[in-house]
């Protein structure tokens, strides 16, 4: 986080030559770094205390290690699954299905939602259908999708794509329709065609909304894939957690859950990085150094 903040300020300052405001950069950056380190220290402390208490309670016999598991057993389970390569195989299968489904659904949904800008009539007609589809928990479609696409990777990708498609479509459509009318009038006063208005105004100004839908969608995709793996599959973290759960192998289940957390955090971080890369002007928005008026 500290690194990103520092970069934002650099860009904002770099964007305004001769503003002479660069002097404030270094102290602010180190202050942010200090805040970040303090927060990290506390986070580590919280985790250490939680795990320590858990382990102590299990060792003292205060809680049932068979039903709850213990940090040391989880660690051993994780190490053995890492050594056998099972954890990596499962994590890879889940990540692959999630990323593929997310990319497919978000891409098709976003493009479709943007294109709806061209016809108010069509978007008005399909609006209730989209709302209805959005209301259905997509995991309810999993049994059907597994029947149609098999229990392998494809059905998980389709499931994730279906879940993310609707959100992407709705936010892109909404973003495209809420463009300021005077912005469009300005383009028309230059003599712009509808296609020019679309490519030069509608698409770029919808991007922030589309990308913030990505943040929601990466989580949705993961939930769908894991849900699909619960129902029917031969690998993946969801599959592993489900199988080990049926065997009452709680340490392995925990190891799977922690891996999922890690995967979710990594995927989310990737989307955030992509967001900052794709929307450089957004960074400068809040941090902008104002030049004196007139």
């Amino acid at each position, binding site marked *: 986080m500290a690194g990103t903040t520092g970069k934002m300020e650099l860009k*904002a300052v770099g*964007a*305004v*030559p*001769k*503003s002479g405001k660069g002097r404030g950069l270094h102290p602010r950056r180190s202050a942010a770094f200090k805040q970040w380190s303090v927060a990290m220290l506390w986070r580590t402390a919280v985790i250490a205390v939680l795990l320590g208490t858990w382990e102590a309670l299990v060792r003292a016999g205060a809680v049932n290690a068979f039903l709850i598991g213990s940090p040391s057993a989880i660690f051993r389970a994780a190490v053995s699954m890492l050594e056998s390569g099972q954890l990596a195989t499962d994590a890879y299968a889940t990540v692959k299905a999630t990323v593929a489904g997310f990319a497919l659904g978000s891409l098709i949904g976003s493009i479709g939602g943007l294109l709806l800008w061209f016809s108010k009539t069509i978007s008005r007609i399909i609006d209730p259908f989209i709302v209805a589809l959005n209301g259905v928990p997509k995991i309810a479609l999993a049994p059907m999708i597994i029947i149609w696409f098999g229990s392998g990777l494809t059905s998980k990708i389709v499931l994730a794509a279906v879940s993310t498609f609707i959100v992407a479509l709705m936010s892109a459509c909404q973003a495209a329709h809420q463009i*300021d009318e*005077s*912005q469009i*009038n*300005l*383009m*028309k*006063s*230059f*003599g*712009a065609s509808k296609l*020019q208005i679309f490519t*030069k*105004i509608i698409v*770029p*100004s919808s*991007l922030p909304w589309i990308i913030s839908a990505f943040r929601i969608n990466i989580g949705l995709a993961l939930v769908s894939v894991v849900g699909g793996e619960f129902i029917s599959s031969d690998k993946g973290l969801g599959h592993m957690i489900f199988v080990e759960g049926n065997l009452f192998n709680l340490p392995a289940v925990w190891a799977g859950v922690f891996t999922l957390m890690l995967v979710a955090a990594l995927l989310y971080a990737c989307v955030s990085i992509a967001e900052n890369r794709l*929307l450089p*002007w*957004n960074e*400068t*928005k809040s941090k*902008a*150094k*104002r*030049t*004196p*008026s*007139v």
Partner: protein
Amino acid sequence: MHGLAAAEYRSGFHKKEQAAIAVRDVTKSFLNTAGEEIRVLDGISMEIRQREFVSIVGPSGCGKSTIFNIIAGLLEPSSGSVLVGGADIGQSTGHVGYMMQRDLLLPWRTVLDNVTLGLEVQGIGKKDRQTAAMDYLNRYGLDSFAKAYPSALSGGMRQRVALIRTLVTQPDIILLDEPFSALDYQTRLVLEDEILSILRNEGKTGVLITHDIEEAISVSDRVIVMSKRPTYVKQTYEVGLAAEHGSAMKARSDVRFKSFFEQIWSELDIQMGRLS
């Protein structure tokens, strides 16, 4: 033969003296949500001369922006016609430059890329449009901001960039729809003067919509006062203080300034009294 040539010559000559904008009996009605017809413009006629700077003032909600949208070809009048440079605009757009209340700079484009927007729409090559844009940015001291994003600029700077974005497409006529209203007072005074001198310098015809009577008097050759809705042209004042003094700022200290203000104010005041 000779007669025809003479007629052609005369009409050609006449075209040169043609009003920059001629609005002829323009009416505009809208349907409200209840399906009733609401008449906004009630037979507007006005002529704007070449290289003239005219302000249109009127009570708020009187349809000033509607007139602009019709002149720019963004809205179709219910009846009547608009001639720009003697030619009926029909449903075409792109014959006037339009500067709006808000600068409408695109936040994802740098100042340079914002300025070239109009040229880009008109299909001019990247090199040519950047050269043209840098030329204008240089001329008006904004070249050092070419690579900056609009968010880094102050409100006054942003409006200057918006004006240059309009100028760079080289329209003969520029419509200004309350471009100073969002600015603080000092910035506004400086910018009024600046924009006026830029338009004179470039030989443009300017039409300004404003609700600020002082602003209208200080910058205009003529002030057109509109009635409340349904709108018609109530009165026209030949002001010309800015042209006489060479500056909008100096026009404000002219002895006639106050009497113009009182006359125009009373035209508007009566209507406001009736409205409330």
